[in-house]
């Protein structure tokens, strides 16, 4: 087991190097000129040149790449073109906000997905199965940002059961002291339960939006995987032993854990980028809406930093997933040894 873990971990430094290089290439090998945007249309050639020198854009691409790698090895992602705030600080500030949104959304998605998929698997081939399948197709076909707007209309405007989609807390609420940067975690840590409650209320709309949208993914996986394991030999055996239906279902769930855990990990990593638009819709100050804002301003160090960061999160999540699955599934363990 240790040998496998070591084998997976040794891959990380090499992969990190590739990820950081790709982040550089994607952002820097583009025909767009950020100086034009920063300086504005009426700036003189001297002003543009001054900006170019200040931002290091007068050097050729190889020098910039070496600079970038050098800074990176010291944990420096550069500073924003506009605000001069170090990129790593911004990422630190917004990371946990997005993290909170993703975790709550994933829990909702898992819960909904398992109910829908579980019903489908249990009544495989019957009318209820066809109905849940149809339901999943519907959910899958609604773009998440449109779903978000529909929920704003119904839950906020019509029913008025959620606060306005204007951010993490109301304008008059007191934010907690910054510890991790995540509002819910911080207010819980500092015992500020009033802010925690308000923050949770504001989290309802965006997390339900993402939760419903991604429940379709879990729903399909759950239906197929549970369906297969409900028809497997061991479940047949459990049935013949006369175990209760609920017990059998739990056993089928354990049997189906590997693909389900894989799905959770893939969605977790993917959501760091995929929730960006939802964050924008609900004015959720997370890393995704920060990234979109920076991209539209062509703030190269910030974009680079975000892409690198998202790539690394994916890399680490997948490596961890690999190890976890080898640990959970003896068949894979045997094969890799």
């Amino acid at each position, binding site marked *: 087991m240790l040998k496998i873990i070591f084998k997976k971990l040794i891959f990380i430094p090499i992969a990190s190097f590739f990820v950081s290089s790709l982040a550089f290439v994607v952002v820097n090998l583009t025909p767009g000129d950020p100086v034009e945007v920063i300086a504005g249309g009426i700036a003189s050639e001297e002003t543009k040149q001054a900006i170019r020198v200040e931002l290091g854009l007068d050097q050729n691409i190889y020098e910039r790449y070496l600079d970038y790698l050098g800074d990176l090895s010291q944990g420096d992602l550069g500073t924003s073109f506009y605000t001069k705030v170090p990129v790593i600080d911004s990422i630190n500030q917004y990371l946990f906000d997005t993290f909170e949104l993703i975790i709550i959304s994933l829990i909702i998605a898992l819960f909904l997905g398992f109910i829908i998929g579980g019903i489908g698997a249990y009544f495989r081939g019957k009318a209820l199965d066809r109905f849940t399948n149809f339901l999943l197709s519907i959910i899958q076909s609604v773009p998440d940002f449109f779903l978000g707007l529909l929920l704003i209309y119904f839950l906020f*405007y019509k029913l008025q059961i959620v606060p306005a989609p204007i951010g993490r807390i109301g304008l008059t609420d007191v934010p907690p002291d910054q510890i991790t940067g995540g509002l819910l975690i911080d207010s819980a840590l500092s015992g500020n339960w009033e802010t925690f409650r308000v923050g949770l209320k504001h989290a309802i709309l965006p997390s339900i939006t993402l939760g419903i949208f991604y429940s379709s993914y879990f729903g399909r996986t759950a239906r197929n995987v549970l369906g297969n394991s409900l028809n497997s030999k061991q479940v047949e055996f459990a049935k013949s032993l006369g175990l209760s239906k609920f017990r059998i279902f739990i056993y089928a769930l354990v049997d189906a854990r590997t693909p389900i855990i894989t799905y959770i990990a893939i969605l977790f990593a993917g959501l760091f980028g995929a929730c960006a*638009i939802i964050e*924008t819709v609900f004015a959720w100050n997370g890393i995704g809406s920060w990234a*979109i804002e920076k991209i539209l301003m062509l703030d190269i160090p910030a974009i680079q930093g975000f*892409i690198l960061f998202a790539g690394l999160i*994916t890399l680490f999540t997948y490596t961890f997933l690999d190890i976890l699955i080898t640990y959970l599934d003896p068949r894979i363990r045997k094969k890799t040894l």
Partner: protein
Amino acid sequence: MKLVKKINKQNLPVILSFIVLFNFSFGAFLYNFTHDPYATNIIERLSTPGGAYLFGTDEVGFDIFSRTIIAGKIDLFISLSGTFAALIIGLPLGLMASDKTKNADRIMKVLDMFQAFPLLVLAIVIVAMWGNNIRNVIFAIILINVPRFTRLIRSEALTVRESRFIEVATAMGASKTRIISKHLLPNILGTLLAQASITTAHSIVVVAALSFIGIGVVPPEASWGSMIRAGSQYMITGQWWMSLFPGLAIFLSVLSFNTISQYILRKYEQI
């Protein structure tokens, strides 16, 4: 009699899907619009649906009905052409990667790395930095989808290559081109078409997401994403129609492509 009924029931969703897609693709010629989709009527801005404007008007007085219909032309064109190009590029790559050689491993490694990035954000980066035009949106769609097609084609080709008839064909001295064109391709065609259909559905959402945040296809050109964007601020105050109709158009198109994909898969599974 029973057979006819069964066929109809199976085909009906697909037929409906094609009607929906046809409607949005050629809407510009099918309808006789009473309002010019590119003309604003500022006096009658924010009109409610029904009355003179079937779907109402938006904040600058654009007619939502005609714009929802003609937006399909550009949105579907981008999604379809991007998907098609990605398929054309992904096919040889995937076939190459299904060879058991060093190069094949390298292709897959690069693709694995590529998949580590948030693809939607990557698309936004490309369009924002390379310039706001349709060509770059298509390029972004291609870039996102080439790895997916390559991966799918590789895994499908690997399965088919293991089968007896390929072994026999090789033993009989069939050339590589012949094996690929006569034996491999026909066997993966169903999965490929189904995937292309799903990818197009997915691309529609990506195109819409891009114009929703204000890049890609932007006004005065009509696109579903930018129309939803224009109405998004009004959802809080209850003017639902601006975002609802373009949103429904996306929903129907995506649902159609998904339905077609499921149908293709079922058909090929039967054979």
